[in-house]
């Protein structure tokens, strides 16, 4: 797959696969192209070549809202909450699609079970939440859309280690509940602990790929790409 | 051969031109069966109420006159140019009419500003111009043989009539005046103040101004209220004056209100409903637009027949004037005789005395020392939702004409 912004291609010859029911990791330093890749999947950037298949069907070139309708849901980098709306309203907007709205009550309760903190903050404006709470809300909001594939872009960004741990715990629970996950991170340790397959992105190309176990043993890769 | 024939032809042409001055051939714009009359007025832009009305009225008159056989066997034909209420376009229109269309005369149906721009040119071209509407003093002052004003009258005359009416009929001395800041509105206020002082030694209690487009007059009206007048004189256009009067009543001003001629119109009554009752104002034609006067009924019916898809609010005052003034022109053409020249036509116009086509007009008089056709204005009052004439006529002689007597 090839993709980019305007006339510039940022991603070249990407081949990446996320197995149904698995957690896949996407690692890479600043500016490697992780966000670009994720935005391409969601239909927010221009895909200039290749194919993106979801459950066997091509989705490249589709409008973002149609991709959402298929159950491919993104938690964008930097949370991108609706800061002036309440926590509850943010969650409600997560289930904006007709299909998701039907199961609104049940999903809402499920999300509050994943993140009990959100229950306490229900009426608060999203912009006033702490960083960790905001990330919880962003994931919760995505869960409201009843994803089949949940894509997270640097969920650990700017958070304290303890919070990061609890967020990754929830991701595991979500995955255990049957939802496929793709998580992009600079924080390699956390991903290697959580994901099964991992791809390493470097200057818009896949530099390496393999299981977490393989990568965890390959110290050269860790040193040169992941800064561990 | 060809060259000789060409020369011969030009000699004949020159001879013909020379002989025309000895009145063998007819005057410019006059043929055996037609007299060409050039007109201009705004039928696009912001003052279409004036041009559209004036034009439709004139067309009706021409149609009637021609159907009755024309004047001395000649039909009258109007060539109309849109001037968009712009002085430069009006001048261009008049030049085109005179130089290209070679009309016999001009009948101006535009406003003051566009008309004033054409005066100098007409004077120099020695083309008779009968100005139907424009009230600017420059049209008739200083006196000039070629320019006549028909329907409107000079602002000074409004001042005289207002002052005399206040003192003689209403017998009020405590007057408050609100006027628009625009030239013609302000001048009417100025003239009224001047004459009130000169004739009666009365000074207005207060004067304040407003702008076109103003929607709220409370500040000015509170000043009026404070001065506690016996009469409020509101000089403006219909949209502003409508709001002004309504707000005056809201603020508890119960005094009589006189409006300027520019708002003596049925729209004012539509806008104000019961608040219009008792309003006073000057009307520059004969019977009012919706009156049952037989002449007006006849005019309305003829007008409606010719303008079947007419918008509401028409015919208006300008339709009436467009119509009545063409009849004044026709009257002078009749007097001038079959052997028509521009100079004879002017002489004939100067003989017109107390002429009107019917009771929808006021009488017109011109002399060889003034060309102000109309000094008569009727005081109107709103009764039961209609403008009706008030039984009052001025007694004092107008000083307007004194300026022209040598």
């Amino acid at each position: 797959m090839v993709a980019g912004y305007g006339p510039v291609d940022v991603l070249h010859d990407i081949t990446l696969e996320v197995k149904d029911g698995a957690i896949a990791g996407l690692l890479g330093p600043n500016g490697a192209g992780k966000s670009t890749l994720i935005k391409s999947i969601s239909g927010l950037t221009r895909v200039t070549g290749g194919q993106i298949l979801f459950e066997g069907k091509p989705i490249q070139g589709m409008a973002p809202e149609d991709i959402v309708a298929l159950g491919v849901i993104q938690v964008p980098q930097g949370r991108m909450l609706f800061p002036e709306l309440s926590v509850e309203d943010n969650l409600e907007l997560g289930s904006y699609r007709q299909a998701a709205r039907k199961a609104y009550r049940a999903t809402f309760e499920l999300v509050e079970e994943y993140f009990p903190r959100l229950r306490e903050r229900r009426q608060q404006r999203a912009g006033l939440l702490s960083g960790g709470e905001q990330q919880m809300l962003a994931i919760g909001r995505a869960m409201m859309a009843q994803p089949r594939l949940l894509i997270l872009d640097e969920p650990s960004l700017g958070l304290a280690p303890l919070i990061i741990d609890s967020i990754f715990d929830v991701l595991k629970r979500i995955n255990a509940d049957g939802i496929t996950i793709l998580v992009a991170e600079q924080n390699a340790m956390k991903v290697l602990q959580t994901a099964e397959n991992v791809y390493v992105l470097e200057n818009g190309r896949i530099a390496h790929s393999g299981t977490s176990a393989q990568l965890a043993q390959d110290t050269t890769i860790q040193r040169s790409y992941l800064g561990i | 051969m060809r060259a000789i024939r060409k020369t011969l032809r030009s000699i004949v042409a020159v001879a013909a031109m020379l002989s025309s001055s000895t009145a063998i051939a007819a005057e410019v714009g006059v043929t055996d069966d037609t007299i060409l009359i050039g007109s201009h007025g705004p039928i696009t832009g912001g003052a279409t109420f004036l041009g559209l009305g004036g034009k439709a009225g004139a067309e009706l008159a021409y149609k009637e006159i021609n159907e009755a056989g024309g004047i001395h066997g000649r039909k009258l034909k109007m060539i109309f140019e849109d001037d968009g209420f712009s002085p430069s376009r009006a001048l261009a229109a008049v030049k085109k009419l005179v130089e290209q269309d070679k009309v016999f005369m001009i009948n101006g149906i535009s406003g003051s500003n566009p008309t004033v721009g054409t005066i100098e040119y007409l004077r120099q071209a020695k083309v008779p111009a009968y100005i139907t509407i424009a009230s600017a003093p420059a049209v008739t002052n200083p006196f000039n043989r070629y320019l006549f004003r028909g329907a409107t009258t000079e602002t000074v005359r409004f001042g005289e009539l207002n002052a005399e009416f206040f003192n003689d009929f209403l017998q009020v001395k405590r007057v408050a005046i609100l006027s628009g800041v625009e030239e013609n509105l302000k001048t009417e206020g100025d003239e009224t103040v001047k004459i009130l002082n000169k004739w009666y030694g009365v000074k207005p209690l207060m004067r304040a101004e407003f702008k076109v487009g103003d929607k709220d007059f409370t500040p000015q009206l509170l000043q009026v209220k404070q001065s506690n007048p016996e009469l409020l004189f509101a000089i403006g256009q219909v949209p502003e004056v409508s709001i002004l009067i309504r707000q005056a009543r809201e603020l508890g001003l119960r005094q009589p209100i006189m409006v300027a001629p520019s708002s003596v119109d049925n729209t004012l009554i539509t806008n104000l409903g019961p608040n219009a009752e008792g309003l006073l104002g000057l009307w520059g034609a004969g019977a009012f637009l919706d009156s049952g006067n037989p002449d007006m009924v006849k005019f309305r019916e003829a007008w409606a027949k010719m303008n079947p898809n007419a918008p509401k609010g028409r015919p208006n005052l300008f339709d009436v004037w467009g119509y009545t003034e063409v009849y004044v022109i026709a009257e002078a053409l009749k007097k001038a005789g079959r052997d028509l020249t521009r100079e004879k036509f002017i002489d004939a116009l100067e003989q017109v005395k107390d002429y009107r086509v019917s009771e929808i007009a006021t009488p017109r008089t011109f002399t060889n020392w003034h060309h102000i056709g109309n000094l008569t204005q009727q005081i109107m009052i709103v009764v039961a939702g209609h403008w009706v004439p008030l039984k009052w006529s001025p007694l004092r002689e107008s000083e307007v004409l004194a300026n022209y007597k040598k």
Partner: protein
Amino acid sequence: MGFSDFVQLVVAGLSSGSIYALVGLGLVLANKGTGILNFAQGELVALGAYIALFYSIVVGLPYWQVFILTLLTTAIIGGIMERALLRPLLGAPHFTVVVATLAIGLIIKNALRISWQEAVSTFSSPLDHLMLQIGGININPQYAWITGCSLAIMGMLALFFRKNLVGKAMQAVAQNTSAAQLMGIRVSRIFTLTLAVSTALAALAGILMTPVVGVSAEMSNVILKGFVAAILGGFNSLFGCLIGGLILGLLEIFGGVYFGGLFKDITAFVLLMFILLVRPHGIFGTAEARRV
């Protein structure tokens, strides 16, 4: 000034203030929702009034039907305007969009002048020529209706934004367009809807104003007052606009009384300059980062 004059001034000031608030709200809504600063908003006020005039005079409908139909018609016009004229400019430089809206305004204004040449300049409402007398004070019920109706519609709009999912989606798009897209919100539809609502708000101002001030293409000048109201309110909230409009309405009318009628308009702009110098984010606005 007596007590009854004072009350009348307050009532009149509040009513013109609520008109300013409606105009300002339309501006803020379009700007927050789509990033467009719509300089045609004033002409849309006039357009609404003319459409109402058309339904009332030409079609001959009663006031209430005129009211509803005009709001619907102008909402559709606003939507079409977004689709056909503004959507193609999405992503164009700010200045281009501003010029485009100015051009739309000029076109509307001239089209109105050309297409309506009848002398009648107002349409009737059930409250025409009535006068409320409360304890010897005359109050024009139109004023009460203007204020009440504006407040009611703004209240309904506030409820719509607070309670309705589509209303929330409109806010979401305003606060973060790409996040809204990621929620599956069809942003283009929300843009269309936002302009439909803001156009209908302009038309509402036009309809409400008409029985008091009459219809004219020059009604469009009210955009300046709308701007002042919106800026006073911080240019970002419904409530801010409302308070900004009411303050302006009152200051203007009392300013006129104390400094003279011809200085009325100046009052508004002196106030605007003052606010911009002293509190550039309006009375309620905070120095929030601008949306990018």
